[in-house]
Every structure is written in C-alpha cells, then in structure tokens.
C-alpha cells in the first residue's frame, strides 16, 4: 500500500471511497447491470435502493471483487479493484447476500477464521472477536455452530466477519434482513459511529423508510441502471423517499381490484 497507484491521477477533488464507472454484466441473454456509474463520497452513509431483480447484488458483487464485470471499472479509495484486488480487498469489508457461510464452524470460530485469513495478528483477532460478539449480542451463542443459528443471527455473524479487519469501506448487501429490531438498532448505532469517525458504509435495501432515516446519500437502481443518485434530500425532492421511489421506478397500480376481499 505504499506504492502510489495511478488510478487517481485525473481526479483533483477528494478521493471518493468508491467510484464505479460504466459497470455492466450480462448473464446469458439477460443484461443484469447495464452501465452503472456511481460516486460514493468518503465518510458517507450510502444507500442503494431498487426493486427485486434491479441488479443491486450484481453491482455490489462486481464492486467488491466477487464477480468479474464485463465492462467498467471500480476504484476503492484510489485503488482499482480489478487491477489490484489484494490491496483493494484490504480496504473493504464485505457482507454478500445469498452466499453460504462456513457454517460448521462456531460463530466465534467463523469470525476468527475471517481475521486469520486476512493475515491478522492472533492476539488482535482474539480481542476484536470478543468485542464483535458482544456488540452483536452473540456472546451467549458464540460456541454454537453457525448452521444452528437463526437467520438473523447468521446475518449478524457475517456482518461481524466483514468488520474484523477495520476496513475503510463497508459494503453491506441487505444487512438488516431478518435481524430483530433491537439488534438492528445496535448495528445502526455501530455503523453511525463508524461513519462519524470517517468510515464509509454502503448498504443495499428495499426498505425505504430505513434508508431515508439512516443514510445521507442514496441511489435508486432499477433494471440495471441508476435512475437517480445524490444526497437523500436531493433525490426525494420534498416527497418521502418511498413515494419518490415508486414514482421513479413506476409500476404502482391504482387498481380497484380485490373488492371481494372486503365482503367477508
């Protein structure tokens, strides 16, 4: 990380935490991501919202080095993810959606494993594992196999594994799915403090309320394209984010159907 990396040459302003340019991916005949460009400023709490199948997960997978894009570049804090993957991955903590975990390990073992894989010192790992387990309210279940965890606990243990190396950028795909309200509030306050001290968080979600309350920046994605991006206030333009989202994405049907449902 000492070598100057050339990817930041043309950029005169502050280096964005994540810069995506013209990203595209096709699966067979279906174009999942169709030229997405995004700037995520350093120190922002960035929400990516979109309907099911909009390409959120595909975009985030390509941005974090898990899925090779067909076109486009991704730069994290000035490091090109696909040219210098090892350096870039050191800067990022990733919570992918829809992947399995090594679930025959206990929760404690899994976080430790994530830390050791990154080549961290054993003592540092041990101290952070204890902190993370306490923060995620998992200390009582630390010795249980992850395969026996509930969906919310599994999400939390994966989140903890993404944070152990103190990354500068956290990319979290659907982090609050199935997580109970108390744990979600705890995680949010952890993330808020992380952002306040200069870290950057990207979350994808389709819970508009959550994004409006939690994030300062937001991008609306649908059909593999960015429909709107900017600060939350810019994007929602006076309306609630949910109304603005439905307006942008379209498809809200004002049908009068299902009258029989009220007849009992």
């Amino acid at each position: 990380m000492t070598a100057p990396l050339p990817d930041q040459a043309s950029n005169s302003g502050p280096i964005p935490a994540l810069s995506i340019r013209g990203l595209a991916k096709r699966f067979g005949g279906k174009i999942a991501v169709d030229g997405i460009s995004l700037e995520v400023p350093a120190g922002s709490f960035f929400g990516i919202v979109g309907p099911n199948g909009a390409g959120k997960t595909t975009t985030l997978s390509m941005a974090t080095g898990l899925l090779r894009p067909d076109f486009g570049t991704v730069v994290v804090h000035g490091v090109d993810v696909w040219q210098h993957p090892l350096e870039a991955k050191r800067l990022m903590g990733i919570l992918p959606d829809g992947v399995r975990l090594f679930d025959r390990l206990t929760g404690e073992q899994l976080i430790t494993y994530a830390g050791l894989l990154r080549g961290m010192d054993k003592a540092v790992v041990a101290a952070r594992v204890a902190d993370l387990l306490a923060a995620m309210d998992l200390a009582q279940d630390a010795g249980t196999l992850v395969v026996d965890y509930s969906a919310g606990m599994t999400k939390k243990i994966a989140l903890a594994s993404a944070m152990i190396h103190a990354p500068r950028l956290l990319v979290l795909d659907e982090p609050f799915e199935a997580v109970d309200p108390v744990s979600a509030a705890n995680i949010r306050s952890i993330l808020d403090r992380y952002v306040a001290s200069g870290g950057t968080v990207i979350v994808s979600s389709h819970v508009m309320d959550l994004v409006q309350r939690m994030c300062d920046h937001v991008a609306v994605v649908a059909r593999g394209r960015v429909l709107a991006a900017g600060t939350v206030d810019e994007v929602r333009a006076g309306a609630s984010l949910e109304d603005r989202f439905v307006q942008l994405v379209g498809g809200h049907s004002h049908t009068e159907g299902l009258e029989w449902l009220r007849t009992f």
Partner: protein
Amino acid sequence: MVAHLLRLKLTLLRNGLRRSPWQLVGMAIAGLYALGLVAMLVIALVLLRNAGTGTAHTAVVLGGSAAVLGWGVIPVVASATDMTLDPARFTTFAIPMRQLLAGLALGGLIGIPGLATTLVALATVATWSRGVLPALAALVGACLGVMTCVVLAKVVTTATAGLAASRRFKDISIIAFMVPLVLLGPIVAAVGRGVSASTGFLPDVAGTLSWTPLGAPWALGGDVAAGRPAAAAVKLLVSVAVLAGLAWCWKLLLERALVTPPYTGAGKRKGGRLGLLGVLPPTPAGAVMARSLTYWLRDPRYSGSLVVIPLLPVIMLFQGAQTGHYGGVAFLAPVSAFILAWSISADVSYDNTAFALHVATGVRGVADRLGRSLACLAFALPVVLVFAVGAAALTRDWAALPGQLGLSLGILFSGLGLSSVVSARYTVTVPRPGDSPFKKPPGNVGQTLAVQFVGMLVLLVLVLPEAALLVAQAVTGSALFGWINLAVGLLLGLVLFAAGVRLGGKWLDARGPELLAQVSVNR
C-alpha cells in the same frame, strides 16, 4: 379430496422431472433398475406356482416380511424420506383427517418403491392361483401387506420427524449408514454362507414370522392352499388388526405433528473454545488447515468418506480369511493414499458459495491450497504409514516395505499436488452443504465425469516412475529397487506437491471470482 392429493403428488413428480433433463435420466435409470428387479421377482413368483406348497409358502412369507421390514427401517436410516407430500405443508388447509390419511397413504404408493412393491405383491396371487380360494386369499393378503408397508413407513417417519429434523441426528445416522453399506460385500457373503449351510431352519423361521405382523398378510394364500383355513382366519385377523393399529398410531402422531412443528434449535453455548483454530499456526494457511480439518470431522460429507478408511482393512482381511491369500493387503496403503489425496480435488465444490469468504478476504491462492493439502496430509500420512507397515507385518514381507512406502507416498504427495491444481480450476457436482452425502444434485454431469476421469489418468502418469520401480523389484527381486523407489517416491512426490500447490495457487489468484461463479450455479 383423496383424488386431489393424488393429483398433487403426480403434478409434483412431473414438475420435478421437468426441472432438468438429468433428473429425468436419473429417474429413468432408477426405473429401469427397479423394473428389472420387479420382473425377476414376478417371474420367480409365477414359477413358484409349480413348486411345493411348503416351499412357496416359505419364500413368500420370508420375502414379504423383508419388504415390510425394509419399508419400516430404510426411510429412517437413509434419511431419504420422500417429503413431496410432507403433512406439515397441509397444516394451513384444514383438510379432514380421515381424507388426509387416505390421500397420503395412497400417495405413498406413487413412486418407484411403491409401484414395485405393489406389482411384486400382486404376483403372489399368481403363485397361489391353484384354486379360487387360495388366489382370493393371496389377493387380500397382498393388499393388506402393501398397505401395511406404506402405513408403517408413514408411522416411522412421522414419529422420527422431530428427531430427523435435528442436525445432529442427521449427521450421525448418515455416518452410521455408511458402515453397513461399505461392508455390504462381506455381510452378504457371511449371511449367504450361513443360510446355505442350514436351509432346514428357513421353514421354521417363516412359520414363526407368519404369526407376526411382519409375515401375517403374506401367509394367507399359503395357508388356504395348504388347507389350514383356521390359521388363515387368525392371520387375517392379525393383519387387519395390525393395519388398523398402525393407522390409528399414524393418526395420533399426525395430529400431534400438525400442531407441534419440529424444533430444530440447539442449546446455547458460550464461546471460548476455538478448537483447532487456536492450536494451529495463526497464519492464513494455518487457518485454512484448521478449518478444513474441522470440516473433515464435523461435516458428514467429509467424515462419511473418512469412515470408509478404517473399514478398508476389514474388507481386505475378510477376503484374506476366505481365500487364505493375504496378498491383497499390499494394495491397502496405495489405495487409501489415492482415495485420500483425490478426495480434496473437489474441495472448492464442497465449500459451495462459502468460498466467497476466501475471495472477499483476498487470501493468497498458495495459502488456500497449502492449508487444504496439509489438513488432508495430517491424517492421510499416518494412515498410509500404518497401512504399509501393517501389510508388511501381516505378510512378513519386510523386503517389500520400502518399495510399498515409495509408491504410497508418491501417490499421496503427487495426488495432493494434482488435487490442488484440479480444485482451483474445475468444479464438479457434489452434495450441497447440509445435504446427505448420498444426495447428488443434478448438475454438469459431463464435466464431473471428465474431471474425475482425466484427473485419475494424469495421476497414473505422474506415479509411473514409482510403479515401474515396484515392478522392477518384483521381477528382479533386488531390494535395491525398493530403496530407490522410497527415495524417488518421496522426492518426486514432494516436488510435484510443491509444484501443484504453486500452480493451483496461481490459478486461484487469477480466477477466484470465476470459480465462485461456477460453484454458485449449484446452490
């Protein structure tokens, strides 16, 4: 309602087949196999028509009892229960219990095992078509017997549903099931010899069984044909009572199961025990090794194949005891070296998408390869050494030991190197995490076979020098070749191992995301 349930079962079966042509192929193969078996049994039963009453009676009762026993036992141990009509899925539909029971019972007959049992059972009518009454009795018996099979299976699966849903029971039952499967050859041979040594007691066994729930329905035809109407009447009563009792049990169990879904959670357990992760060196390679070893012990897909290893000598010794020739044990060390080294060639496929953690953390490919290989080596090396020395001790052929060790270690190290390369580039279709090792999902069968075949061919080429030296020693009888073999096996093996780990690591660094995309297909 019963018709609805049956149609639902057929629709599910058809849609399942439509999902992938390979499923259709698998079903066709299983169907052909079953058809052959059924045809054989039906022909045998028809031919029994001309046999003496006693012989036919014994055969039918024994076969029928075995069928009932099989239907009761196999669904539990194989954890291969057909759950397409899982009663838990009907909880929200308020179906009357009586109709649900009838529908589920008849639905149990649809499918290969049900149809096969029905056909064979009906063939007993041909066996007893020595008159109207015996044939009629056999028909009643066949119907009762088949229904007993189906309802017994339902009772057993419903009763153990809660148990079967617990992960621990699943893991243990899978491993326990491996043992008799591996030892099938010796067991069949021993039972066969025992039976052929004393066929005289079989009619007695059949006679006893025919009074028990297992054999009673199958004895009806024989008893009527032999002119024992009183015995037949009592056995009819027994059969009907057993069927009614089983149905009643099933109803009770089902009523309870529908309102108390199985509880799968495990107890809370505090941390503080890192296991192997705390013992092995805290480096990326050490962590991978600790994780792999933990999986060898905890994941039944791995530990199932581990159970096979200690059983190999049992099979070889059994063969030796039968033939008086113990030459076969010489293959023990090389064969187990091969099995263990090749077993990690599908390691990334076994990880499934959990492999994303390795890609996300950016762990170096070499560390990944080295960790997985060392985990395998940690138990493979002692096993191979013990087997080689044990074989030499048994045959008192100590002169052969160096050559044996050279070949076995060569296979082990070269194989680990090759596996490291193969699993970094090619994925194969393997059981998914948490599934039974016997359950292979449909997938790229072509690539799986190609990878396995070509990989083994390459390994054969890689260990050619050691094999040639072993032959040279056997031909010339010179002990020198054995010692050369030991040196060559160790050196060549270690060189190939290092090369394999490095090449596999390089490929993994370059193509980690592509490999992750490949394993994501099978999830």
